[in-house]
């Protein structure tokens, strides 16, 4: 900027002297190009700096160094932005119908920018009326074969494995990034039937195996589920053995439909209308409780191995989650502050205790823009 400013002053001095000093005061012909140049220079500098930072992160990761949790000013600034409104504005922009001739160019540009695989799209590009329709595209038959092994649990989405492991320790926590972890009970909801053991009576058989609410336990079940978290007795509870987790991140260019990981019965659906922070790598390193604060839909139920829950978490650019098993669920709604309750909106699927039966590989939901 200083060099541009020096350029401007020399230009101004030259313009002033060449016009005999009288007309030199007319609009400076170099002002606009100078400002434009300064802006381009600044954007270029920011981009170079961001690429340098990304390269540093990549090198650290290759050396096996994991960057720690480190909140920064940008994360604090993000909290001030109306991210839900921005997300809905983005949704209305991407739902604009494109002229047929323009569609292939837009979708090719998108797939070049975000490494999507256009060959797999089920329809010709001209058939997707808007970017939003393209984003939630289905794939050609046979593009995602389901692993035939009957003793395996499959990935519900395309994406990158961020974390996986067994829940251990005093309370069920999952690392968001090295140096910060979030509570599984907060992620799934206070009324989750995640099988836990109250500290002190961790001997076999006493663990709450996440029973399906029978007549007797139903009242307690409802009492707990209707009670706000603080009503539950504040004892430390730890997960029984054999509770596992897996966190999968979907990039903007990935296929964004969600499938069933096993054959299971979905008993309950919980919708948390939270924030819509971005969920990229930088956000996970700088924003606390990202997965617990963002808008999300949790499906909970049982499979042959016992308890099963799947949380689909939205982000600023992908704020909506559509459930094929419950088409009338609406997410990413304009939430007026007073209605912004922390309690999830919950639905028990009929018939109670049996819920919705899903086969391994069935389509369950889809993320969408806005």
């Amino acid at each position, binding site marked *: 900027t200083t060099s541009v400013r020096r350029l401007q002053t020399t230009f101004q001095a030259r313009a002033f002297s060449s016009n005999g000093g009288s007309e030199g005061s007319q609009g400076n012909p170099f002002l606009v190009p100078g400002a434009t140049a300064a802006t381009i220079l600044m954007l270029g500098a920011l981009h170079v700096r961001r690429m340098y930072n990304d390269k540093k992160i990549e090198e650290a990761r290759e050396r096996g160094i994991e960057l720690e949790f480190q909140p920064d000013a940008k994360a604090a600034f993000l909290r001030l932005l109306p991210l839900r409104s921005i997300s809905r504005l983005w949704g209305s922009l991407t739902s604009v119908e494109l002229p047929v001739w323009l569609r292939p160019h837009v979708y090719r540009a998108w797939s070049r920018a975000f490494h999507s695989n256009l060959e797999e799209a089920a329809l010709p590009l001209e058939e997707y009326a808007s970017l939003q329709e393209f984003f939630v595209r289905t794939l050609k038959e046979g593009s995602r074969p389901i692993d035939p*092994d009957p003793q395996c*649990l499959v990935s519900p989405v395309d994406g990158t494995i961020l974390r996986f492991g067994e829940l251990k320790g005093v309370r069920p926590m999952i690392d968001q990034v090295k140096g910060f972890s979030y509570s599984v009970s907060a992620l799934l909801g206070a009324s989750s039937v995640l099988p836990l053991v109250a500290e002190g009576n961790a001997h076999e058989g006493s663990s709450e195996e996440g029973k399906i609410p029978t007549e007797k336990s139903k009242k307690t079940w409802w009492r707990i589920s209707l009670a706000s978290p603080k009503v539950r007795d504040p004892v430390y509870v730890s997960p029984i*053995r054999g509770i596992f987790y*897996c966190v999968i991140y979907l990039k903007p260019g990935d296929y964004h439909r969600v499938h069933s990981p096993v054959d299971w019965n979905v008993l309950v659906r919980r919708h948390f209308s939270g924030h819509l922070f971005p969920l990229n790598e930088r956000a996970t390193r700088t924003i606390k409780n990202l997965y617990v604060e963002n808008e999300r839909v949790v499906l909970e139920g049982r499979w042959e191995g016992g308890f099963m829950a799947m949380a689909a*978490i939205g982000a600023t650019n992908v704020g909506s989650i559509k459930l094929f098993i419950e088409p009338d669920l609406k997410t990413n709604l304009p939430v007026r502050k007073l209605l912004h309750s922390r309690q999830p909106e919950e639905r028990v699927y009929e018939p109670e205790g049996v819920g919705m039966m899903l086969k391994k590989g069935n389509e369950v939901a889809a993320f969408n823009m806005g």
Partner: protein
Amino acid sequence: STVVLVFQAQVPKSPNDKDPEFSFCVKRGERIRVGEALGRWRE
């Protein structure tokens, strides 16, 4: 967007127990696609 799976799977109650044991067959940072195995349980 992100998907988090939390699930219960068989684990042997004691070292010489014959119960099947679940184990992941993925690595962190790995790309995965719908339908590919995340983990298997073996006798």
